């Protein structure tokens, strides 16, 4: 029995002996696209630091940061990020990269949006056809983008107004799974889609509208507010991510030969 306890103690203690790390609250899109697996080894090699990524929706990531439970954030909701910094929770927000949203739907395309460049127009046609639409409904960056698009298209989607639109209340992957099962339209970030396997008959129908750009920002959790934050280590990550080395790592990440995260300069073009 004593030996068993000893082994248990060892098993429990071992992670505590691991090397220095920071905790990064980020989004499911960055984690599930495989970006972190691609760039973290380069950072580790250069700095010796491990990065513990907690991947959640942008809303939850900001909440984790506000409670002081992460050292840095990498999220995508500009308004939410500015509020986070404005409220004093974070400091030194920087543009890191962007990807874009794509409108996905079944090959049969009952609303006839294939090839449309205007995202607003596409959303209007889906609403007019009352075609099934899968929404994240989880206050994530993607969900907030979708709501802005409906608003811009003049479509009322408040409670009960659009029964053809279903809120999954879950991450990008589960929502895509649902859309694949229901042959529904869905708004997704390109990176998650590129890495998504259970596609059914879904395909990209509309893309390329500038309003669909999706910028990611890196923010440091304010060490003045949370004294336990690993401020120095987090800053090293923050600097690396926006340094030539970090930018090169991001730009060289490809899924099936397709680049999914772009550097900020590319947006201006």
């Amino acid at each position, binding site marked *: 029995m004593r030996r*068993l*306890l000893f082994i*248990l103690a060892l*098993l*429990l203690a071992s*992670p*505590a002996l*691991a090397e220095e*790390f920071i*905790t990064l609250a980020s989004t*499911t899109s960055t984690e*599930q696209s495989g970006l*972190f*697996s691609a760039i973290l080894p380069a950072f580790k090699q250069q700095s010796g630091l*491990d990065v*513990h*990524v*907690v*991947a959640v929706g942008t809303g939850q990531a900001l909440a984790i940061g506000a*409670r*002081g*439970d992460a050292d840095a954030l990498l999220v995508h909701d500009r308004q939410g990020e500015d509020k986070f910094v404005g409220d004093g929770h974070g400091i030194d927000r920087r543009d890191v990269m962007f990807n874009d949203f794509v409108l996905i739907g079944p090959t049969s395309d009952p609303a006839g949006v294939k090839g449309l460049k205007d995202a607003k127009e596409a959303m209007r046609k889906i609403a007019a056809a009352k075609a099934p639409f899968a929404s994240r409904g989880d206050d994530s960056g993607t969900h907030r983008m979708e709501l802005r698009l409906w608003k811009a298209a003049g479509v009322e989607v408040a409670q009960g107004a659009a029964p053809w639109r279903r809120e999954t209340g*879950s*991450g*990008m*992957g*589960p929502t*895509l*799974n649902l859309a*694949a099962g229901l042959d529904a339209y869905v708004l997704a970030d390109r990176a998650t889609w590129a*890495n*998504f*396997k*259970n*596609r059914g008959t879904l395909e990209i129908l509309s893309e390329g509208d500038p309003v669909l750009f999706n910028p990611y920002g890196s923010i440091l959790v304010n060490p003045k507010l*949370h004294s*336990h934050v690993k401020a120095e280590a987090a800053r090293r990550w923050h600097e690396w991510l926006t340094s030539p080395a970090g930018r090169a790592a991001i730009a060289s990440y490809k899924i099936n030969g397709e680049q999914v995260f772009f550097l900020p300069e590319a947006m201006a073009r």
Partner: protein
Amino acid sequence: MDDIGQAFVIAVKLIAEADAELFATVRLSLAVSLSATSIAFLLGAPAGAFLVVQTFQARPALLVLLNALLGLPSVVVGLIAYLLLSRSGPLGFLGLLFTPQAMALAQVILTLPIVLVLTYRATETYWRAYRDIFLVFGASRLRMIGMLLDSARAALVTVFLAAFGRAIAEVGAIMIVGGNIRGFTRTMTTAIVLETSRGDLALALGIGIILIGLTVLVSGGAFWLNQRMSDE
């Protein structure tokens, strides 16, 4: 159907190739759930027997409450543990959030009612049989508890197993307090959630098959132990 067949192939392949990431995940799942169940057992089994030998006014109410807690939703436990361990919470100074220790703590909360209630039930029958003898000999409470647990030891294996089964299978609590960090707090169940959300259903089910195989092994071992104990 294609996916299900493929899942078996993936499961066999992962084991055959001794996939390092999978092994680390399995090791973490076992370490967290075994330590959580052990702690819950060391605390809960004596306490369960204590509830048998000690009558007090609030006991019926406490038993009703504990029985209700058998169905404690794991996400709620996760949320409570998160709020306790968060830097802004009462135990935040420990810095345990998003660590395996935090996951073990959540699973202790989750399994403690199971150990308490099932130990209570297992020792109660012995109590009915032995109570008069205990009282005649004037045994101390501590001694009574010890003897009850010893008598019920075969049943206690099942108690341990029931608690372990709940711990190793749950995902709601450890997802919230562990954060599903790759190579650090990713367990088999959180890996299954992740692969499902990536749409890689065959890989998700493949890991699920390995998880089920593992629980069958553990319960087989417990069955063997149980047999040996009842033979003695």
